[in-house]
């Protein structure tokens, strides 16, 4: 069943509009990737900036609406909230990255992830945009910090995933000189050298890792206030530890073992799959203390 979240009151109308814009931006980036048409990339980037501004407005609307109906917690409590926030952070991260590096070629990966999250939020019946009263366990000032730090980490890992794919494509091209090796064609010629991508992957991942660590520590502090202990081996906690170990492995492999950049890119790609499972899989598959997003059936 398709169910569309499009209420002007709680901001979901704007989020749904932003989904269509993301889809447009995705198409633009796809055209860019195949044709190398810079104009397409530039248009897509402006759309993306527009989405970011719109979503900021939507969040303000949603937050104000939540408070106006007497629920005094930030709108970050259910599956819908978390999906749109995920998309928001990913787009924001990409815009930031775009300021420093020319990674337009990654645009179609980022818009695909953000678009998938927005589509899930906008059309899935298990993610209604209705603002529900917050259950007692979530009524805490820790909520905001816990969620925001972790989603910044998720955003960074999403970017590292895109960069990892980009690296693997570029690397293959660089090391397999084709017949017309004199001049590189296609969008791969437009992105920086693989060694630069490698460096950015590392920087983005350590950034994400720092926020992941902060988010887990904040979560532990919160759990110590709410659940009777800072660590309860809840599936989400366990998986966040697995994610943490995965990226710790990445950082160590690079720094002390000097693994090849290609292997690092593979870990960056695989790491994001762990992240996605930690973020959505654990909520939707395994019941646990974190199952706020689990739809009531």
């Amino acid at each position, binding site marked *: 069943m398709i169910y569309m979240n499009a209420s002007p009151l709680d901001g979901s109308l704007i989020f749904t509009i932003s989904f269509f814009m993301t889809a447009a931006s995705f198409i633009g980036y796809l055209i860019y990737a195949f044709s190398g048409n810079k104009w397409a990339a530039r248009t897509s980037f402006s759309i993306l900036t527009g989405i970011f501004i719109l979503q900021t407005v939507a969040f303000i609307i949603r937050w104000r609406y939540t408070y106006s109906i007497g629920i005094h917690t930030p709108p970050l409590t259910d599956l819908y909230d978390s999906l749109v926030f995920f998309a928001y952070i990913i787009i924001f991260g990409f815009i930031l990255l775009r300021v420093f590096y020319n990674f337009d070629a990654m645009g179609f990966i980022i818009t695909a992830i953000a678009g998938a999250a927005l589509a899930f939020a906008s059309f899935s019946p298990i993610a209604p945009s209705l603002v529900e009263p917050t*259950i007692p366990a979530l009524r805490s000032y820790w909520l905001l910090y816990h969620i925001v730090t972790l989603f910044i980490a998720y955003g960074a890992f999403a970017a590292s995933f895109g960069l990892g794919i980009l690296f693997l494509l570029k690397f293959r091209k660089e090391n397999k000189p084709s017949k017309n090796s004199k001049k590189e064609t296609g969008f791969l010629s437009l992105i920086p050298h693989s060694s630069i991508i490698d460096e950015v992957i590392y920087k983005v991942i350590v950034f994400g890792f720092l926020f992941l660590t902060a988010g887990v520590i904040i979560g532990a502090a919160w759990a110590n206030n709410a659940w009777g202990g800072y660590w309860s081996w809840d599936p989400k906690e*366990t998986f966040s530890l697995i994610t943490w170990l995965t990226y710790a492995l990445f950082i160590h492999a690079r720094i002390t073992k000097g693994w090849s950049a290609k292997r690092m890119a593979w870990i960056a790609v695989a790491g994001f799959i762990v992240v996605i499972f930690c973020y959505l899989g654990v909520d939707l598959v395994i019941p646990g203390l974190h199952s706020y997003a689990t739809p009531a059936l």
Partner: protein
Amino acid sequence: MIILLSLVLIIGSLIDQSDTMLQYKELYGPAWFNILYSLGFLNIFDSWYFIGLSVLFLINLTVCSIDRLPKRIKGIIAPETSFNEIFNKNLTKAKYYKLTSLKDKNTVLSETKKLFSKKFGKPVEKSDNGGSELYFSKNAALRLSPYIIHLSIIIILIGVMLSVTLGYRAYVNIDEGQTVHHAFLLKNNQPVRLPFGIRLDRYVTKYYPDGIPKSYISTLSITKKHVRVLTKKIRVNHPLRYEHHTIYQASFGHYKPDAVKLITINMHNIQKNKTQKPEVIYAEVGKLYKSPVKNLRIKLMLIKNTQRKTGIFPLYLSVYKPNDKKPVKNILFSVVKVAGRKTPLVFTKYSDTAFVFGGIKGYFFSGLEITKNAYTWVVWTGSIIMMIALFFAFFFNAKELWIKVSTEKKAGGNTNTIEIIAMPHKKFISFYNNIEQTINRLKNII
């Protein structure tokens, strides 16, 4: 090592760890249950191999860190400043650059020094017959931060071990008005004595307007030797901390069915203008009570669903004569709206005895979780150290630079050779690009 640990963690997260043995037997069937049980999969985080792996991991971490630490400390306190030594070492991260200049040696040296000092700080200078040498080093002390991160992990794990061995997690249900001096351990239901008593003064659930629970609030008193020392309201996210014990609101429930408060009035007395105190009785539905006035017995009954209409009070009263087994009369309650009152008046009458509905009294118990843990501060200290060290480890790159200026004497004039070895401790392309840019600028000057 990390991969092995992760595997155990994955199994742990896939199999629900909190069910009871019986639930597991139902879920997996007896054969699977026995296999899973003997592998320790049902309580994986307490299993010997998980603890063993964690300890191995801890030892591994400690040994690796200590193994490399002296060399690194030496590298920070007394770095190798000699250009030739470094040149012969052939370091993988280092890059070698060479350029020449016809200008005067002192100019070359001072210009080089000026340019690199901007980014690398003050150099160590050395001069001998072979030429002059400059050694720059930046953020060297921050090379210790990985060790501090490892140390912080060890601190956190020590804190965890202390809380596991010296602390406990327990639960207890307290009825309103009751005082308890013990709780039951979460892991095996064994009772544990508390160093104080906990009395539940009152329990309330607060609701949002649409009936969804907003908060669960227990008013608790801590007693010591029967003296009340502290009273505090606790709710979810707002526990009570007392002498290394933390008391959490975990659940609640009814320990007796709700009772209806009935105010019984003898109308006969009122008509005769006799003052009387209304008699109050708390009656549970379906139980027979002796009426406080008149020689009657009463029983509250629920009106069955099929007969229920909106606007009708859902209970009726069965009235019994003292020795009868069957009621003499079943009477409904009347609901009368009274001006100036929010709630309507609900009452019924049997001959000259009136029964007024005075609300519902619930008998609540509060489920509390009680944790003893005096060492959480160790974990938090470790966490804070870790955050700070992570920040410095990630966002600062230690870098070293060795420069040698040597002069070759020729008939047509002296040629100065500038040799540069640049080494970042994190191999970043951007570092080499930066160095190359600086060198190009140097070329233009000299």
